[in-house]
């Protein structure tokens, strides 16, 4: 799966499942900042989505990997089978 496709799927997930407005969500937007405001409950959903969609476990992974769609996609890229 191309990196762009991973990012696009992640963006769609944030919009459909976590209620994020697509207009303000760029690939480098800070997910846990004031504007998007993700919290620990949302991170559980991200972990679950990444596991079931890309087969990559992010359980217990350091916070910096969750900073943006870019960083999550990079983690997926580096760890997919």
């Amino acid at each position, binding site marked *: 799966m191309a990196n762009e496709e991973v990012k696009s799927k992640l963006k769609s997930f944030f919009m459909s*499942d976590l209620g994020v407005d697509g207009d303000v969500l760029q690939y480098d937007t800070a997910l846990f900042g004031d504007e998007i405001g993700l919290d620990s*409950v949302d991170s559980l959903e991200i972990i679950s989505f990444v596991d079931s969609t890309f087969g990559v476990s992010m359980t217990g992974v350091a916070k910096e990997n969750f900073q943006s769609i870019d960083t999550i996609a990079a983690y997926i890229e580096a760890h997919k089978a």
Partner: protein
Amino acid sequence: MTPNDKRCVVTGLGVICAVGNNVEETWNSALKSVSGIHKTTSVDTVNCYADLAAEVKCDTLDEVDAPEEKDRVSKLCIKAANEALADAGLSNFNDDQRVSVIIGSCVGGVISIEHYHQGAKEAVDIPKMPIASIASQVAETCGAGGIVTNVANACAAGTISIALACDLIRAGKADVVIAGGADSFAAVPYSGFLSLHALDENGCSPFNRCNGITLGEGAGVVIVESYEYAQKRGAKTYCEVLGSGVTSDANHITAPREDGLCLMEAINRAVKNSGIQKSDIGYVNAHGTGTGKNDNAEITAFKTFFGEENPTVSVSSTKVLTGHCLGAAGAIEAVFSIKALTTDTVLPTFPYTEEQSAALKEKVGTLDFVQNTARPKQLKCVLSNNVAFGGTNAAIVFSKEQGSVTAQPARNKKIVVTGLGIVSPLGNSKTAYFDAVKAGKKPESASVKSTITLDDYKDLGIKMAFYRKLDNLGQLQTVSGMRALQDADFKVTEDNAKDIGIIVGTSEGGLGSTYDFEELIAREGNANGSAFKFPHTVYNAAGGYLSICSGIKGYGVTITTGPLSGLDSIGYSMNVIHDGQEQAMMATGTDENIPVITEFAQKLGVAASEVVAPFANADGCVVGDGSVSILLEEESYAKARGAKVYCYALGYGHGRKNVKFGKLAGSDEALDKAINDALADAGLKASDIDAVCGFANGFKKVDDIEKGALQRVFGEKLATMPLFEVKERVGEGRAGSAALAASEAAMLLGGELASDNAYFVAADGSVSSKFAEAANLKKILVISFAAGGSYSAVVFGK
């Protein structure tokens, strides 16, 4: 000292949980430190990382009238209630208006939701689903004819029920209250807590390993009586119930505040309202769920609150016995607390190794966290506290002595309506409502709903980071609540955040979201629930979101009885202000119409197939929704901040004649009682009333009850008395419509609505309609109903 007419005593106890099917068995298990946590046998655990639960094992749950009409949760509750009533030497009350039932619950009839969804989608399951069915079915079983309601504040609901019971008795509205909580273990909460990674795979270990909770199930019931009533009938008494405290975190929908500040405020209010010293508390039955966040917040709160005044108070969590029984937790723990108090025993949390004990000591300092075995301790007062999703904190004091409770010190103070927030299928502002009245708008179809838009959020300054989390019900409630504050020009600040509270009234609350969650896990498996969606299943999430959005940190309760909950929120709010607990209260009515709600109405045969008007003698009604929030303030408080005043809230009344939950027929006369009760509360006569804001929705069975009662109460005068019926425009929006009817009254009295279409009932029962002017209206009666035979009435005046 608490005057005798304000004393509340406990005269009966009943319990069912994983370690016992009655008080004696449960107490013996507690004394022997027996845990009820085992591998679950009742839900699918495939691919789930935790498979433990504390389930009730009882063969006699079906020994109730018409068991096929009751969910497991009602059966658990009725069993505990019957034990408590027998213990108190009480039985059938024959619709006695002085006997009330208040039951707390978190997930209500969730097993019936599962059964409906996975079975043939039969109508018989529908009345068993809402939390509102529980108290109604308990009342039907024992013939309680007073206020019958449910508290839906998730895991704090059981404690708040007992607190509310005392508030009613002290306000003179009841002599006996059957108070408690009930919840059953089921796939929805199991999958939900799994998705939050909040279950401990090894079984909960409160204040120790703190890796998560273990779910339990059961019911606890205490009979609370006015001291004078108990004395008169020569009842044995266990103890007194002194003060309570309820607050809101205004922080996060699932997690408690780490600093425990608002929990501490709830405990502080409970102790202060009891008129006792901190050092009078000998034992605290903590919430102690076993999650790190909860347990650490509680330890912080206890250490700070008790401080040097009571550094060695005993503390424990009994959830290792029963599991976390959600809405039943506070009620079951009340039974433990009362038994502890009356037998001078402190109960333990277990098991702790020596090493774990040493680690705990390190954390809690001088506080006496009781470990492994129960032990004797002379006790004067016991505190029980619980916290819940939605950010609710609740604490209550049980005592051997009568304390110095102050109740109703502000009884003579006047209450004014200062702000209205209207969200309805007509739009989400007062202006949209006025425009619809002018245009004579009718519902566009037989099923209508409200729609929140980005413009609403923009206008109210609500950021995406917040609104993205809201489910439909939360959207409706947040926008109507924020609109009411905006309308009242009430700015919530750090200084006044604790002076204002919220009571949300709802008929179905989170039932629709619970159904959606059930659909999700039926499709994806219990291991694949959604941590994002699960919080919406609790009925008090909507009120919790409003508290977070607005910053309101005072009293926060969600009640659910049926449509009339939108008026009960006003009546109970008046009581909270009269009690001096808050200076201002946001009373709301909120219900949603997502597709499954219309499906339920159609299956039950109460949905019209086309648009019908009030008094149309139809065989159904338009299904609607809405959220209406009404800001009430103590008059001098409102005047001090220069608030505009719509009208005065003068009186509240209630009536009940028990019929089966889901039915109304045969309960007509209870509406007469509700009206007369409200008139008496307001110090008025029927002849003082100039107009009525009613509940007619076009469905003959409903409308005839309204017509009949108004004819009996108002006689000939009715023919010239305007009846304003808001459902002609918004459909049957249950609690949302009841609160809208109250808003209509406020707008007519406040001069904002100069005239509206009104219905007139002639002596022969025929109905006509024409526009009526508001200018000469001085006192307006507002009425509503609930399935099971409950009615409420509120009087507003200029």
